[in-house]
């Protein structure tokens, strides 16, 4: 589903954020992306959604070479990817409900279907009671859950999460993991970047260090070893 082949990314300043990164993520697979701050986790996720383009190598999503996509084709790639941004990217000029319905409006859903799906997504992240609130009135953790609701409302086949549990306590982390698991159950492909080692048990983990893949552990083997 997602395939990196010798991918390097150098930012305009000359800093090489990713060096020769190669890995494959099968359809329906779930994996964690770990690494120190500045290791290149966000950069890697952005390359998948073509928010950044690689300087060399190729990024394949669904057998499509994302790095070669025309700008006009990007929206249709991104509609298939639910993205949870590290900096949330919520809109504070509208309600919680309106934030979540944006992806559906973009795809042209009608009113009734939109309302139904938005409520279902908000229910999943425990924000159903807050749909009329402005996101600015939400706590850090609630904002993070709002991001998750917006990412999953469209039922994308790929979910990319950039530190989705950074502001959450252990209990909510468990809740969020359950949501991701349920998404995994229905066949979505997930790549989740995290600092939180507690989340990693029994799941494939890709560890980045200074832009290179340092270690890669298949979840099943570590699971068996532990």
């Amino acid at each position: 589903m997602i395939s990196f082949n010798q991918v390097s990314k150098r930012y305009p300043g000359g800093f090489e954020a990713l060096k020769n990164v190669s890995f494959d993520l099968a359809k329906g697979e779930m994996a964690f992306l770990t690494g120190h701050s500045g290791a290149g986790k966000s950069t890697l996720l952005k390359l998948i959604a073509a928010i950044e383009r690689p300087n060399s190598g190729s990024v394949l999503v669904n057998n499509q070479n994302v790095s070669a996509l025309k700008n006009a084709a990007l929206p249709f790639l991104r509609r298939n990817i639910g993205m949870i941004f590290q900096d949330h990217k919520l809109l504070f000029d509208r309600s919680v409900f309106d934030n979540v319905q944006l992806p559906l409006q973009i795809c042209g859903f009608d009113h009734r279907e939109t309302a139904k799906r938005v409520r279902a997504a908000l229910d999943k992240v425990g924000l159903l009671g807050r749909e009329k609130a402005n996101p600015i009135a939400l706590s850090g953790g609630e904002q993070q859950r709002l991001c998750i609701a917006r990412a999953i409302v469209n039922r994308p086949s790929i979910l990319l999460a950039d530190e989705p549990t950074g502001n959450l306590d252990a209990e909510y982390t468990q809740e969020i993991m359950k949501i991701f698991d349920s998404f995994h159950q229905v066949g979505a492909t997930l790549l989740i970047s995290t600092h939180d080692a507690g989340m990693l048990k029994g799941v494939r983990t890709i560890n980045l260090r200074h832009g290179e893949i340092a270690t890669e552990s298949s979840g099943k083997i570590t699971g068996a070893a532990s």
Partner: protein
Amino acid sequence: MGALAQHAGIAQNALRRLFSSPISGFLNIIVIGIALCLPSGMYVLMQNAQGLLAEVSASPQISLFLTMDANAEDIATLRKQLAQNPAIGKAVFVPRADALKNLAQSNGLADVIAGLESNPLPDAFVVSPRATRAQALDLLRNQLQKIPHVDLAQLDSAWIYKLEAMLDFARILTFILAGLLSLALVAITFNTIRLQIMTQKDEIQVAKLIGATNSFVRRPFLYLGAMQGMLGGITAWLIIVLCLHFLKQPVSTLSRLYGSNFALQPLSAADSLTLMLFSLYLGLMGAWLSVARHLSEIEPR
């Protein structure tokens, strides 16, 4: 139905955005309205002047004053000559005695005229030419002037010529004005949309990040520009209708004093529609240019 509802939603949203800061929203529309009402108001005045011109120039006359020594025989030849001229529709002979009588009756100069020893007025023909264009009339007048026993051929509508020239001038002025102010409208819309794009920068970025096509991002701004343009057009229309309303009475009084039943014509339905569609189109164009220029600068990171 779904698509229609979606468009209605975008239009409603655009309207709300337009008046999100009510004062500047209204000011913009009023500025556009005033800019548009100048050329369209001039156009209306010209339409009216043209109507007036057609009315008066439909019956231009040339007065042919004869020399005092012209006798009955000369007059008979002249009458025949005039009747045979293809450029002349009708020629009416006015004997000098009748002319004096008319003068005495119409202008209350009876006392003065009664005091005259002899009739100072010459015999005359009143000629109605077939042509109505000023140039053709002038030609005919020169031709008639050269006939023997004609003392003076006077085109009593020389002012039509001047009016026509003035209208030509006004027409060009209107075109120039319309061109310049259309440009101003496009510029105003360009700027409105630029500011709007800047205030919605976050929204545009997020929308692009989660899969909005360019046309989806563009559409609300195009609606906004078109709507601002059309509201400006409606404002211009209202200003013109109001002005015409206030001018109607004085103009008809004035024309009655001149013995005409000329009345100020309002803006026709077709012209009104044209005005609004044109302003909508200009707004759309300004928005389009602005969007093309500014939207591509906002790429998500």
